[in-house]
């Protein structure tokens, strides 16, 4: 880890929701500042996502918590669902058992989650701690076409869609997004700020692409079927799209 002391706020993905972990000794001013700093690049891009706040122990008063909720909701559009305080923070948020299982990429199986309640290790931490082990990544499969109005989030890794993403549909992942079909809607890879994420589609004709805090839309006139699979990635502060020839 980069530094031993806890950061004031930590943002982690957990299935299709977010966890905000607030350090125990932080004041409300510090917390607000830290949230603004963490969210600076993300802006409103995660709007509509549910969030649980983990306050480790009850250092923040109810009023102060309301301020945090207000900030998260009004500035970033996040829906705070639960406050996990010192007493029940070890318990898993309600309803997690019903989530679709995620596939452990390395073992090729559906693992039982060992760390209850705690979000999976962040990508970078995985690399730092286990750099002598094969990289473990979580992948979520969507095995149908996403139609207008449907939103799929996976905030713990990568997403593979076996179908199309139609106009008006949205896919959001903290890692890469691969569409084995036509991507016509909106895709947001690296949703927590990882600009090394990529978006790959067999047919890339999106309404809009987002990687981390970068946003792009296809040049006007780019329509109809593409002949080849394409990849979108960030290069020199902008999203570029090119024919996919392997990473």
């Amino acid at each position: 880890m980069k530094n031993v002391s806890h950061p004031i706020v930590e943002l982690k993905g957990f299935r299709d929701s977010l966890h905000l972990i607030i350090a125990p000794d932080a004041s409300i001013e510090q917390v607000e500042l830290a949230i603004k700093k963490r969210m600076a690049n993300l802006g409103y891009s995660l709007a509509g996502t549910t969030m649980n706040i983990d306050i480790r122990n009850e250092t923040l008063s109810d009023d102060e918590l309301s301020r945090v909720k207000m900030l998260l909701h009004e500035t970033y559009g996040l829906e705070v669902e639960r406050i996990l305080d010192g007493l029940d923070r070890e318990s898993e948020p309600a309803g997690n058992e019903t989530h679709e299982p995620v596939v452990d990429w390395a073992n090729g199986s559906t693992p039982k989650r060992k760390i209850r309640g705690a979000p999976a290790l962040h990508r970078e931490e995985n690399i730092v701690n286990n750099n002598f082990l094969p990289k473990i990544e979580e992948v979520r499969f969507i095995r149908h076409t996403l139609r207008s109005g449907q939103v799929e989030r996976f905030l713990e890794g990568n997403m593979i869609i076996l179908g199309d993403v139609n106009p008006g549909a949205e896919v959001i992942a903290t890692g890469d997004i691969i569409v084995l079909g036509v991507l016509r809607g909106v895709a947001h890879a690296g949703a927590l700020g990882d600009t090394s994420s990529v978006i790959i589609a067999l047919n890339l004709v999106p309404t809009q692409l987002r990687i981390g805090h970068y946003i792009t839309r296809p040049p006007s006139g780019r329509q109809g079927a593409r002949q080849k699979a394409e990849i979108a990635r960030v290069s020199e502060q902008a999203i570029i799209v090119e024919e996919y020839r392997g990473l």
Partner: protein
Amino acid sequence: MGKVIVVTSGKGGVGKSTSTANLGTALALMNQRVVVIDADIGLRNLDVIMGLESRVVYTSMDVIEGACDLEKALVKDRRTKDLHLLAASQKNNKNDIQPEQMKKICLELKVEYDYVLVDSPAGIEQGFRNAAAGADVAIIVTTPEVASVRDADRIIGLLMNMNIGDMGLIINRLSPKMVESGDMMDPDDIIDILSIDLIGVIPEDKEIVVSTNRGLPATYNHQSSAGQAYRRIAKRIEGEDVQIPEFRAGGWFGNLFKFKVFKGI
């Protein structure tokens, strides 16, 4: 036991009511026993399109409230044997009916009739949910416009969530000339996006305006190209293998579109 078919689109003004009236008429002309239900509570107009406005006495609301029997509330179309209308109440609104109540009506009707066509209101709210509640099959109506296709896609997603997986697509008001000049969405592109079976293409036809204003569905008019297209759809609903002629400027070619055609409900 008959089938309940909901005719829906998401977007307004794409021809749901016109399609319901014409398909109902076409099926009845094929000696099927048909009821069409106007589910657009508060904005009823299926009765007008079918020319039955002056004969409506009871509505589905009266049936639900127990003011009259279901059979008594049906308006019989005198021009065609076995074509009936269950009108919508104009003084209520969509939230006055619950999906279960609508479902009950549909279940009761399909015991007696071969086809129950439900004309859905526009939108994705309760009015739509009421209309789809008792449906076995859905007919999605879209025009070759981006906005209309987008809304149809949304509706298809919602219907799938309601476990109505059996769907057929009508592409309405297609202008072959405009498709050819690249000014209108190609049926191929629409089917590519919506990925459901096509059940028919209705060409743009001025006759429709005249017929809806007169309350005489275009199906009765053998000169109307839209009327002919509706009769072909009715045959496909009945399971007949009728080709979908490709509409092109200057006439039709006997070709089929290259995709699967919805057949037999």
